[in-house]
């Protein structure tokens, strides 16, 4: 070991280590559900682990509303914050990178490197901004198959996602049953409820009514609709936590000893929400946020089948793992049960676990002994079926 290396902070031994995002450029136009066509696009992605010679050990991770390609590991030796699903991806973790080759991408419309509203529109020379075509889960899955083709992956050992990511995983099984061996749908729903859409609409209105929004052309006005984004994130954040989690974290704790009878931050929960909102408003693109919430609203694979989810799921061939969390009220366990019941009616292989967690919807991102046991059991079976265990 050299002296230089000794000065580096140690990364955890169960981390995938330092990872570097890559970009794949595509020139084949992508026809979208909205009727428009994306002539060319980039997808930024990360990979962890090694693709085996048979190319049979690839796992696709689909991200949620504000997620991105950086799911695991660190971007540099002194990066303090690992990827958003680092609790579950790494050597010895649920998605064990000693067996699996993990692919995680930023979806189209995102703001972390893949083509989206902050990219330039080659036809106009302007930023896409609000003119970036509306996306759907099916468009994303379609684009993900192109990335799989590029990486030489004919069939994923598993496609996995939480929340909006779970919707993509489900869509994979319907659209490309021959290209996915297993699917894990975590804290998801077969469609948004009126209440879910209502919360999304409040978030959208918060952004769109910000005077700095300029109908989505804020970049050209050198503005950022920070207040709107902040409000949108604050509303969203409330729906990600459970009442109990908020209660135990903040209760009615005050920032100072007594009420100060004003509208400045008094309660700790106000401080927390404002902080979350502020951080988000400087790191996320408003047009991307609007688009992502619409992707959520539009998702309803049963709709073309008269609302019959079992019929929608008929093409699926793979085993499913469905996981929900007891205190999730955004996509509650009953929505996961709807997916499970439809899979049973369709005669599909499915296992379902409802994890007792206090963390609400956000539980899907966190470590939890039972969640990890279930997830690891599923992935070990995936590895065993493909005879991946015991190989480098």
């Amino acid at each position, binding site marked *: 070991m050299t002296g230089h290396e000794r000065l580096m902070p140690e990364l955890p031994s169960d981390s995938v280590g330092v990872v570097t995002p890559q970009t794949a450029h595509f020139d084949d136009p992508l026809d979208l559900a909205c009727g428009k066509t994306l002539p060319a696009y980039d997808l930024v992605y990360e990979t962890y682990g090694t693709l085996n010679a048979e190319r049979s050990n690839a796992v696709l991770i689909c991200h949620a509303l504000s997620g991105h390609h950086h799911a695991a590991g660190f971007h540099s030796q002194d990066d303090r914050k690992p990827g958003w699903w680092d609790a579950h991806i790494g050597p010895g973790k649920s998605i064990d990178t000693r067996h699996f080759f993990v692919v995680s991408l930023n979806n189209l419309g995102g703001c972390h490197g893949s083509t989206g509203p902050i990219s330039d529109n080659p036809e106009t020379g302007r930023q896409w901004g609000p003119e970036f075509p509306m996306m759907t889960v099916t468009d994303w899955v379609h684009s993900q198959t192109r990335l799989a083709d590029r990486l030489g992956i004919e069939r994923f050992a598993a496609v996995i996602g939480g929340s909006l990511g779970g919707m993509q995983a489900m869509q994979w099984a319907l659209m490309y049953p021959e290209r996915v061996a297993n699917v894990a749908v975590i804290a998801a729903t077969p469609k948004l409820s009126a209440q879910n859409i209502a919360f999304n609409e409040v978030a959208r209105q918060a952004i769109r009514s910000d005077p700095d929004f300029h109908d989505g052309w804020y970049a050209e006005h050198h503005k950022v609709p920070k207040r709107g984004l902040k409000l949108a994130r604050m509303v969203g954040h409330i729906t990600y936590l459970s009442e109990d989690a908020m209660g135990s974290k903040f209760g009615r704790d005050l920032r100072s000893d007594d009420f100060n009878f004003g509208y400045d931050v008094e309660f700790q929960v106000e401080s927390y929400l404002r902080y979350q909102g502020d951080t988000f408003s400087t790191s996320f693109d408003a047009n991307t946020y609007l688009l992502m919430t619409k992707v959520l609203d539009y998702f309803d694979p049963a709709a073309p089948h008269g609302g019959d989810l079992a019929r929608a799921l008929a093409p699926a061939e793979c085993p499913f793992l469905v996981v929900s969390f007891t205190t999730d009220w955004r996509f509650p366990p009953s929505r996961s049960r709807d997916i499970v019941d439809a899979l*049973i009616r369709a005669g599909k292989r499915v296992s379902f676990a409802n994890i007792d967690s206090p963390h609400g919807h956000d539980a899907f991102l966190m470590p939890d002994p039972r969640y990890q046991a*279930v997830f690891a059991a599923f992935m070990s079976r995936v590895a065993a079926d493909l005879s991946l265990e015991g190989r480098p």
Partner: protein
Amino acid sequence: MKRADFTLIHDWVPEGAHILDLACGDGTLLAALARDKQVTGYGLEIDPDGITSCIARGVNVIEQNLDEGLANFEDNACDIVIMTQALQALRRPDLMMDEMLRVAGECIITFPNFAYWRHRAYLGFKGYMPVSKSLPHAWYDTPNIHLSTFNDFERLCSDKGLIIVDRAVGIGDHEGHWTSRLWPNLFGEIAIFRVSRGQ
């Protein structure tokens, strides 16, 4: 398979059947039936460790409380519904039997026989609620809230107009002791019934 009742069930389940295993535990029975008899189907369980074991061995398991019924399974969704050692722990065993025979034309049920002579002796001579290998709990913490006898179960089937296709009793873990002839209500520790819908 270690459990004695599993051996008999294994013999009774036809090749390629689509089955539902209520309170499937760690999935031992379903895994063996899938391996040896190519059965398909689902297990229902609420125990977290059991669910994890099922998932690890590739048994389809649904986390579901049996007391909430089987409404998510359609009429005649399966060929056979199996329930081993769980009937006595349900809030309404009679309603569960209706549910089981709605989902499948036939069901296999095993339960501890409260009229087993050792249980009778325990209660009769010692004056305490029986504790045995098949009834391992104390009266205050037992999940077994609806204990019954071999005879009780026969009567329930008769009252419901169900057909008892086959029945047997077993003693402890001894596979060789399955019998249906000699005073089953007295000598059987575990009762096992194969029941189908009446006409």
